[in-house]
């Protein structure tokens, strides 16, 4: 009897944590998204789809969705292209390339809050490093974090700076898995360096690219810390991304129903993306590789 129970006993602690803090909360969010509550009232009246309707009618939601999409559409390809390019230069196991990998990788394990604070200084109008450079070169100061378009650009820059090293490491792993003979064959065929890169490297590293594409899109849709620390979603909502909006609606406006509805929509979207990855892209990768 005990022997049969053994695997369950081993798995039980993890499964109970997952149940209590991941799966049950999904159901709770779903439940709360059909209700109206502000933490204060003793009751949570059922309001059907009102919260979803309110959300889809609100300018904030579409703004946050647009901003987040712009963030993802710019920052994801930027990260991947840069990372693939740099990774392909850092393949050799030399001291310099190892030091470079270390330097590039460092930000991705560093505190995001600290990075956000440091870059708030870099881009601060009066005492920042960027404006010191600009004025040194004879240009006038730029209000990086007060100009709506610039502020989003700054966030994309900081996020790329932080995550790039991780992408590079993954690409190096992917590139190192490519058999050397393929390169030799391409070289024998008289391929130029750029040609080999396009015809051999890029297709063969596709599975890695898809992996990175998925995780960086999912990440982009969950960006919060740099937004909260650097801009708070401002100026004028220009950097108000979805999770930032969720935090604001949930924990400063305490519209728990609306916040839950937003969480559920975002959840459905990201899960759909993950399934899309597994089904469609997964197959495509196998055909090509």
């Amino acid at each position, binding site marked *: 009897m005990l022997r049969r129970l053994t695997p369950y006993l081993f798995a039980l602690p993890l499964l109970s944590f997952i149940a209590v803090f991941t799966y049950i909360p999904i159901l709770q969010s779903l439940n709360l998204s059909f209700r109206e509550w502000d*933490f*204060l009232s003793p009751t949570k009246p059922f309001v059907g789809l009102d919260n979803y309707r309110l959300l889809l009618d609100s300018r904030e939601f579409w703004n946050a969705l647009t901003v987040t999409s712009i963030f993802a559409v710019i920052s994801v390809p930027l990260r991947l292209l840069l990372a693939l390019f740099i990774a392909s230069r850092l393949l050799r196991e030399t001291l310099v390339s190892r030091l470079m990998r270390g330097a590039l990788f460092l930000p991705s394990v560093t505190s995001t809050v600290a990075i956000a604070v440091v870059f708030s200084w870099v881009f601060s109008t009066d005492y920042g490093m960027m404006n010191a450079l600009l004025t040194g070169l004879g240009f006038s100061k730029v209000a990086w974090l007060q100009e709506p378009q610039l502020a989003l650009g700054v966030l994309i820059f900081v996020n790329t700076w932080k995550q790039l090293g991780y992408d590079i490491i993954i690409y190096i792993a992917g590139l190192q898995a490519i058999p050397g003979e393929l390169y030799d064959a391409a070289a024998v065929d008289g391929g130029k360096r750029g040609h080999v890169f396009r015809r051999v490297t890029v297709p063969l590293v596709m599975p890695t690219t898809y992996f990175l594409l998925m995780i960086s899109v999912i990440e982009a849709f969950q960006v919060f810390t740099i937004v909260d620390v650097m801009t708070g979603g401002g100026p004028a909502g220009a950097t108000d991304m979805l999770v930032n909006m969720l935090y604001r609606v949930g924990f400063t406006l305490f519209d728990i129903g609306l916040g839950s509805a937003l969480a559920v929509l975002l959840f459905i979207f990201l899960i759909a993306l993950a399934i899309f990855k597994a089904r469609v892209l997964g197959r495509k990768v196998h055909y090509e590789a």
Partner: protein
Amino acid sequence: MIANKYKISVAALVALLGSTVLASAEIKVEFWHSFGGVAGAALDQIIDNFEAENPDITIEAQEIGNYNDIVTKLQAAIPARRAPDAVIMEVTRYGLFADRDVLLDLTDYVEADPLKDDLYNFAREVGVFEGKNYIVPFNSSTPVLYYNKAIFEQAGLGTHTPLKTYDDLLAASKQITEKLGDDGITGIAAPGQFARWGLIMDNDSDLIDSVSGEILLDAPNTIEAYEFMASLVHEHKVASPDGVTKENNGRDAFLAGKVGMMINSTGNYGRSTSALGDDLVVLPMPCNKVCAVPIGGAGIGILSTSEKEVQDAAYKFVSFAASPESNALWFSETGYMPINKYTPEQPLAAAALAEKPGIGVAIGQLDFARGRPRPPVVTWMRASEYDMWQAMALGQRDVSEVLTEFAERTRAEAERLKR
């Protein structure tokens, strides 16, 4: 006989023990507030005085942040049952908490307290929501116009400069920015929310009607007022956008001598004199269409979840903090207005009025000061107004479009909250 004696001595012993137990059973009152710096020190002094008079009560004061932070933290604390016993609540934003019975109805306490006859009417009124008393005033304020005399003189302005209308403000701000812009000095601080409310009242309008509670965000005069305020930042560039994205930046730049004028609560008087000294000049608010100012500040509320004896102790403190002695100390240190009729007679207050130029300006405005209603929706409206203001001030969106939409949403939100 012996038995009786025994009984008596036991009774005496019990009484003795009982009283020592009571005396040593200190009552702790957890109190959340929003005062740092000069004001924080003054509050500590008031608390020390209270504890000296009431050795059985300890006030555990915690500075939480600004009024917004307190509202947020209190609301988050309710489901966690970790709310304090007493809390500073801004005068327009406690309605939600009163409506939801988070705050204790203090009417009986106030009725039994001689203090009720000593408070100025304007001050007593701020604590009343739907006919019941939920907070007792502690710090009352109206916005005033501060300017930096040194900057004014360098820009060729002075006491003769008119500062009555929007146009006057703009002209002076322009002159400062033009003359001193190269030194990094701008004309005026971007108005904070309290100042915005004041400037809207000056334009003979309001955010929400003080009598009927009607939402006036999209009234023509409100739109005109916002258009003027926004133009200071994005059109005329006489106010720095730094103060738009972060309200305190405007104030801090004024304190640092980087800004010529600032409209802000009289509660900043203490802080401003200590930063600018004799260069600080205080004037009444402009009167663009009419003279009108909002009454701001906060009072202390008591949580309905606390135990009765803690609530009693908390009320003792609340009443003490509004006494002439405490209020005079508070007024003279911070510049918040007297709320107690007997405060001005206090030596501290009299000395402040005689010696501190400008500290009385806010009081002078009481003749045309308006109370503001505090239905539950105000909490939501004020929390949401910041983003609207940013969009307008940074020139992202058309002012009347923003306000029309905001008014609609606020009305809808008010409906939802009523349910």
